[in-house]
């Protein structure tokens, strides 16, 4: 069974085997507003836990996207680069950002589960 966890930087991460799919949360898209530009990491590059791994821009401002775990980028979602508004429409499903082959599953341990994240998101936005 796959498991979805959440970071304090408002990314979600879904682990299947040793492949992690990463995107930004619905809460993040609501804070950002209309997303109009996306930059993703290069396929084949390595990203480090809590390092920047992309950019999203709304009409108002640019924000970095961080990776909650380390790994090698094995796939990126070109559909959200071509049409960034897809991120606002379906952030936690079809509008994923990148897939990683992860090195160390224990990096997932410090991340939040859904209930913890929902509580965190509610507190951080009030």
């Amino acid at each position, binding site marked *: 069974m796959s498991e979805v966890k959440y970071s304090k930087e408002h990314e979600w991460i879904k682990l299947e085997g040793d492949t992690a799919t990463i995107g930004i949360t619905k809460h993040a898209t609501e804070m950002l*507003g*209309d997303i*109009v*530009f996306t*930059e993703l990491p290069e396929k084949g590059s390595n990203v480090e836990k809590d390092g920047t791994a992309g950019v999203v*821009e709304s*009409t*108002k*401002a640019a924000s970095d996207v961080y990776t909650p775990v380390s790994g090698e980028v094995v796939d990126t979602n070109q559909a959200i*680069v071509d049409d960034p508004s897809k991120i606002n429409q379906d952030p936690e499903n079809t509008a994923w950002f990148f897939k990683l082959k992860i090195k160390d599953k224990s990096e997932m341990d410090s991340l939040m589960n859904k209930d913890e994240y929902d509580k965190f998101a509610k507190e951080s936005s009030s």
Partner: protein
Amino acid sequence: METKKTPLYQLHQDSNAKFVEFAGYQMPIQYSDGIVEEHKFTRKHSGIFDVSHMGQLFIYGDGDLVNDLEKIFPLDLKNLKLNHSKYSFLMSDAAGIHDDLIITKIENGFLVILNAACKENDFKILSKLLNNKYEMVLDEKKSLIAIQGPKSVEILNDVIKGVEDLNFMTGNWFLFNDEKIYITRSGYTGEDGFEISVANELADNFTRKLIDKGAKLIGLGARDTLRLEAGLCLYGHELDKDKTPVEANLKWAISKDRISKGDFIGSDIIIKQLTNGVQKVRVGIKPEGRVIAREKTKIFNQANLHIGEITSGTFGPSVNGPVAMGYVENEFSKKDTKVFLEVRGKKHPANICGLPFYKKNYVKGAN
């Protein structure tokens, strides 16, 4: 200092506005539809903008007033007809821009619409320049509401009969609930529209009537994307004390007759720049890809020399791509000149382009 609220604050709250502080006021940046939808709605239908934070300065006086104002503004004010408006600026001796503004000839004087962040300072500068000879009122008892977009004329005319007869950049008095209100056909979105100066206590009721007729409230976020697509300057970005109207590519707004006389504040510099040219000039910039170059982004030429900076940059919803304005060295200001914008350490290709990015739909004559 406590932030001020406009008379439409309650209405903004009722309409789920997200607020930001702007020039000391709590202003709506967007509503639940978001900036892109609000922008598109204005272009296609009709958007309402609360611009009550802007200054409404009434200056009353006799024949001397027009002579004194001509020493300040580079306009042919003697020939400005009653209820006609002109775009202009308040300049320093060095022709730096203190503010950009709209001046309208009214009975017994002039109405000047000023930027919110500049209005108090403008008032001080103008009082001093006019030696307190005239009655000057920075009217806080009136709200200013703009309605913009192709359906605006129909909607406003349903509420206020007769506004459809106004020509672009003219105004007149109308009646709303038996109160006199002043309406001009103008705006800052690149669309046909109106600006309505209405008593604070009537503003909420008036605006709700426009909403009932199908117009929607639009926040400052979309106001910015609309004006940028229309190639219009925003004070504090394209314009400031260190830039002149010639550098800002606004020489169309300076009366030729007044330049030949050279008798207004800053005219020495303006004439010098018109004769000898300027070092830097405002241009439109269109990135080739989707990357957005924000304010302060550095501009490079093909030889990798730093030639300028972006002053405003965003995503243009109607253009469906990034748009920007900025200043570049004059020799690189020609249309289609290839430049590079440094965003997050990478240089992205872009081209100098003509303005506006989005074609205007102003109504010239009513018939």
